[in-house]
C-alpha cells in the first residue's frame, strides 16, 4: 500500500515539474513559406490563416480573396482562389459542410461562401436578443460550434452550426481591448486583452471568464491573436513581430521568432493557427506571406 502511495506521489510531482518544462522546451522549426497562389500571384497583406483538417485557408486581405491549400505529408499545395472584390477578408474558417466562413473587415460581418466561393449568406446570430453584433474574431471549436467575439456588445458568443446561441460570456470588467478568442482541445475558451496584456479563460460550461494570464505587457508589445497547442498557447505579438508562448499555468514561458523580412522572421504578423500534427502557420501580414513552422518539443 505504501509503495503504491509513493509511486502515485512521485508521478504527481513529476507531472507538475514536467508541464512547465514542456512549454519551456517548445521549439519552432522553420518549414517553409507561401508567397503565391497556384498561378504565381503574390499574397498581399494576408491577415488570416487557419489550418482545418488537411486544408489550409488564407485570408489574403490586400488582394481581397481567400486562398485554399492542400496539406499532405508536410507539403502545402495551392488549390483554389476565391475572389471577394467587394470585401476585405480578415479570417477564414471551414464549416463541416464545406462552406467557408469569412470575417469581412469592410462590412464587419461573417460571410458564408459555398464550396465554389459564391456568397450565399451572412452569419445571423439567433437567440441573442436584438443587440447589434460586430464580430472582431471568430473560431470554429473542435465540436463544430462557432466562437464569436462580438465587439459591439462586449461579449463572446458560442453558437451552433446554424448560428443559434448556445452560450454568452460577457467581457470581463475593466479597461482593455479584446482582440481574439481561442479554444483548446479540452473545450476551454480563451479571450485576449491586447491593451491590458491579459488572457482570460472560461472552462467548459462556465458562464464567465476569469483572469488566467496577466502582465503579458512585460513580454509583448501588442498581442492580437492566440491559438492553442498541446498544452500551451501561442500568442502573436503584432507590433513586437514575434510569438510569445504561454504555458499551461498561464505563465509566460518564452518568445519565439523576431522582426525581419527573410524566411523565418516576422514583420507585423496577424494570426497564428496550429494544426493537429503541431504545424504552426502564421499570417506574416506585412511580409506578404504565410509561414509554416513545426513544433518540436
Amino acid at each position, binding site marked *: 500500500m505504501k509503495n503504491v502511495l509513493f509511486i502515485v506521489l512521485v508521478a504527481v510531482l513529476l507531472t507538475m515539474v514536467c508541464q512547465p518544462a514542456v512549454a519551456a522546451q517548445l521549439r519552432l522549426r522553420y518549414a517553409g513559406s507561401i*508567397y503565391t497562389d497556384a498561378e504565381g500571384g*503574390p*499574397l*498581399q*497583406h494576408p491577415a488570416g490563416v487557419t489550418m482545418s483538417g488537411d486544408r489550409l485557408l488564407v485570408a489574403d*486581405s*490586400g488582394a481581397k480573396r481567400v486562398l485554399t491549400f492542400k496539406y499532405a505529408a508536410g507539403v502545402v499545395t495551392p488549390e483554389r482562389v476565391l475572389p471577394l472584390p467587394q470585401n*476585405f477578408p480578415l479570417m477564414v474558417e471551414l464549416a463541416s459542410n464545406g462552406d467557408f466562413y469569412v470575417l469581412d*473587415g*469592410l462590412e*464587419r460581418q461573417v460571410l458564408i461562401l459555398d464550396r465554389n466561393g459564391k456568397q450565399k449568406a451572412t452569419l445571423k446570430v439567433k437567440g441573442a436578443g436584438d443587440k*447589434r453584433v*460586430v464580430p*472582431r474574431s471568430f473560431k470554429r471549436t473542435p465540436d463544430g460550434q462557432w466562437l464569436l467575439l462580438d*465587439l*459591439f*456588445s*462586449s461579449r463572446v458568443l458560442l453558437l451552433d452550426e446554424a448560428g443559434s446561441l448556445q452560450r454568452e460570456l460577457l467581457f470581463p470588467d475593466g479597461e482593455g*481591448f479584446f*482582440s481574439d478568442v481561442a479554444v483548446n482541445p479540452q473545450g476551454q475558451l480563451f479571450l485576449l486583452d*491586447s*491593451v491590458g496584456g491579459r488572457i482570460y479563460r472560461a472552462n467548459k460550461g462556465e458562464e464567465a471568464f476569469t483572469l488566467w494570464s496577466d502582465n503579458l*505587457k512585460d513580454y509583448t*508589445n*501588442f498581442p492580437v491573436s492566440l491559438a492553442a497547442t498541446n498544452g500551451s498557447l501561442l500568442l502573436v505579438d503584432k*507590433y*513586437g513581430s514575434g510569438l510569445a508562448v504561454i504555458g499551461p499555468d498561464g505563465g509566460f514561458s518564452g518568445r519565439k521568432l523576431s*522582426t*525581419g*523580412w*527573410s524566411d523565418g522572421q516576422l514583420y*507585423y504578423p496577424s494570426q497564428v493557427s496550429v494544426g493537429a500534427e503541431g504545424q504552426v502557420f502564421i499570417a506574416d*501580414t*506585412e*511580409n*506578404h*506571406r504565410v509561414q509554416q513552422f513545426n513544433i518540436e518539443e
Partner: protein
Amino acid sequence: MTIFKHTLVTLCLFSLLSVVFAFQATAADNPYNLAPGARGKLCLDCHEGFKGTMEKKFIHTPLAEGQCTGCHNPHAADHGKLLAADPTQICASCHEDMSAANVRSAHQVVSDGDCVTCHDPHSSDNRMNLVASGSELCFGCHEELGQQVASNKFAHSPVKQDCMTCHAPHFSAENPALLRSQAPELCLDCHDSSKKTFKSQHVGYPVETANCSSCHNPHGSNTTAMLYDNVHQPLTSRMCKQCHEDPSSATPFATVKPSFELCQGCHYEMVNDTFNKDRMHWPVVDEKGCLNCHSPHASSEAMLMKAPQKEVCSSCHSDTIARQARALTKHQPIDDGECSSCHSPHSSDNPFILTEKSNINLCGQCHDWQTHSTHPIGDDVIDPRNPNLSLDCLSCHRTHGTEYKHFIYTETINDLCVQCHQQYRR
C-alpha cells in the same frame, strides 16, 4: 523574610533598568554629547545668516528647539549640507505619514522625497513652512496651468486662492489627481444643487449625481459657465435630449442609442466614410465607440478629444509611445503628439491605417529622401530578402524609432546594408 528579600531584589532590578533606560534616552537625545547650552546656540555662533531665518514666523520644530543635529551631523556626512541621512528620506524619519503605498494618486515630489520643493526645512513666513503661499506655490511647477488660470475669462475662485481647497498636497488614498474627494461630492461642498437656478441651468437633469468635470473645467475656462473651451453643439444649445433620455425618465443619463450609432445620427457623413474603408480602427465599433477617444460634452482639446492626442493614442498603444521615448532618434510628429499626421484614426484603406497608400509618398511629405539617399526604392525595386516586397522607406527605417540612430534596425549601417548586399558581408 523571604517576601522581603524578593521585594528588595525586584526593586534593585527595577532601579538598575531605570538607570539604563534613562542613559539610553539621554544618549538618543544628545548623540554628540554636547555640553549643556551648546545645542543650537553653538551652531548659530558661526552660522550668522540664520539669525534672519530664526526671525521668521514659522520655524521647523527641531530648529526652534536648537536641535540642528536632528537633521545635520556636525562632523562629517555622506550627504550634502552635512545631512545625517539621505535627503530624500530624512524628512520621513519624523514625518512618516506624508506618503503611503498603494494610494490612488501621489504627488511626484513626495514620491521622490523632494520635500524641500515645497517646504523650507528651517523656517518660513508661510504656515507649514511652505516656500510660498496658496496657489502661487503650486504654479511654481505647474506653470502652464498657472498661466491658463491667470488668463481665463471665467475663473473658479478657489483655484486662484488655494489649490488645496480641492487637492491634497501629498497623496490621495482613494481619488485620482490628488483630489480630496471626487465630483460631484467635492463640487457639492460649495455648490448648492437645490437652488432653482441650478436645476434650470442643467435643463432638469439630475447632474448632482453626475461627474461635473465632464462638462466644466474645474480650473476655469474662457467659455461661459466654465465649460471646457470646446463644447459639443448639442450641449451649447442645451439639447441634452438629442443624445440622452428625458430627464424625468428612470435612467436620464442613458443614451438613446449605443456606441457609434448615437453619433452617426449627426455625424453620418464621417461615420459612413469611416465604414467604407477596408481597415477599421476597431475601438470605433466597440461598446464605447467614439467615446474611446472623444469627450461627448466638452473638452480642452480640439475635436473634443478627451486628452491630447499622444495621451489618447498611448492609452492603448503605450508600447509604441515607449518605443519612441527610448529611441535614439526621435520622430518629430510623435514627439509633437501628432499621430494623425501619418495615421487616419478612424479607418483607412491602407496598412497601419496610414493616410497614404505609399509610405514613400507619406514620408515624402516631410522628408525629401533623395537629399540624403539615392538608394533605389519604389514598386519596381524588389527586396532581395523577400520576393513579395518592394523597397520603401520602411525597408530600412522603423518610424516609431529603434535603439539605433536614424530609426534603422541595426547597430551599424553596414549591418543593415549586408542584409541585402550579402557579397559584402564580413
